[in-house]
């Protein structure tokens, strides 16, 4: 009986300790990043794997390094890449990427013999339809080259 009473008093004390902890957190600053007003620091973003993008070519940034060898297409577990060889030479004519099927596994990046593919760091990519996530990477490369020049 006495032991039970002491136990209960100890238990009440543990409840007070708990209240003091949550009380302290009540008054301490918030921890969340409130997205549209604040964004997380860019160094945290540098390692983020976003959707794929093509690496700009060396002399001409609008040209891809891709040689249309189809290694990435064969390696991809989700079948999300479509690469078609152009009429002239090795450079691709169509480079389509279905982000809805992609699992960001890096099979294509690591199988590419010329290092033509890399992950972008676009964390805020949103789309309102599936079709908007069927990305034309060659077109992206060209438009981004136009913007920088």
């Amino acid at each position, binding site marked *: 009986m006495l032991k039970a009473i002491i136990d209960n008093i100890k238990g009440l004390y543990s409840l007070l300790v*708990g209240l003091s902890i949550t009380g302290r957190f009540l008054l301490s600053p918030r*921890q969340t990043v409130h997205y549209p007003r604040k964004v997380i620091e860019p160094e945290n973003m540098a390692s983020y794997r976003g959707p794929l993008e093509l690496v700009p070519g060396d002399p001409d940034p609008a040209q891809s390094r891709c040689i249309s060898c189809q290694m990435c297409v*064969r390696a991809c577990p989700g079948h999300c890449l479509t690469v078609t060889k152009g009429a002239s030479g090795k450079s691709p004519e169509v480079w389509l990427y279905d982000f809805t099927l992609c699992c960001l596994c890096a099979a294509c990046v690591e199988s590419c013999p010329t290092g033509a593919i890399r992950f972008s760091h676009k964390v805020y990519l949103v789309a309102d339809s599936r079709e908007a996530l069927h990305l034309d990477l060659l077109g992206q490369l060209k438009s981004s080259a136009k913007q920088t020049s």
Partner: protein
Amino acid sequence: MDRLNFINPFGVRYQPDMVSGDFYTKNFAKGAAENTIILNLGPQHPSTHGVLRVIVELDGEYVIRAEPVLGYLHRMHDKMGEVKTPWQFLPNMGRVDYLHPIAWNWAHVGAVEMLAGISVPERAEYLRVISCELNRISSHLVWWGAFVMDLGGVTPILYAFEEREKINDILQIVTGSRLTMSYFRFGGVCADADDRFLKLIEQFIPYLRKRLKMYKALVTDNVILRRRLENVGPMGLDICQRYGATGPILRAAGLAKDTRRDIPYGVYSKFAFPIPSGPTDDCYGRYLVRLREIETSLLIIEQAISSLPDGPIVIPKAPKPTFKLPAGESYFAVEGARGQVAVHLVSDGGKTPYRVKLRAPGFSNLSLFAEAARGTLLADAIAILGSLDLVIPEVDR
């Protein structure tokens, strides 16, 4: 409840069938006693962590029988393993158990390396240990929060997520993703640790130790939690042996069995760390074992960081995504956050494996729930379910 007749204002008498429900409810109801309620907990229920469904037979608030029904999150990973090359199957491993993906990474990569006879550079082995242990901590943190939430305390899970976010920040530096990580490669890992990675871990270890003290004061010592968990759902060595339970459940039963110590894989044999076991085999014992495992993981990370060697992170001729496995069989087990994770790989020398069998610890651990929950209160059954640390995608595969 089933035998009640209700009258609606339109005067239509409604006479429910004695047993209504789908195949599993009917199958379960065959053994039901008189005057009991058959209750479906789930697949959408706040404390079944995803889409587990448990059919329970209640006498008042007491559970007479319970039967988990699986398969609501079944994705047939075994079949996917047979139609994909081992490399292509690798990203699947992050999806099997989203809380401890790196252990599954390791199990699959280890099985392939065992079969193909691939060795791993030492730096990669150390990075594997560091990332796996960090991931184990984050998994235990989520379990801790979710378990206390099952018991009605809503706040701790958000504190646990603060730490988990920090771990995700660290793991993102090397793995590139925050949830379904696919970090390991056959013969190494895919990215090297940089200075920021090491610096963040060095800051994180003392921070988490401080927070663990807060966890103890806020939750572990809390009288309500202790009375909810002590002497609830004892699972002794006998039941663990019969059901094949592994991980914290087995260790709480008093047996210090840990694959990291028993069958050292990677470089675990180089580190000194205790295997927490006991003191009691009830829910509170399992709770304590998991919290002490966080400290163990911190110890291992500390040792690994201080002795991280230089060198390559992947062997020079690493297998390409389209490599072929030699014929043979391998069974590789690692210690996941929930128990022994194993991949059984059989290959006939073709492009894809002949058979991939994933051994999920949660599957065996959940199978003993029916026996452990018998005769407990409904609230205790929920506590037992939470203390098993279930991740349903892993159970269903």
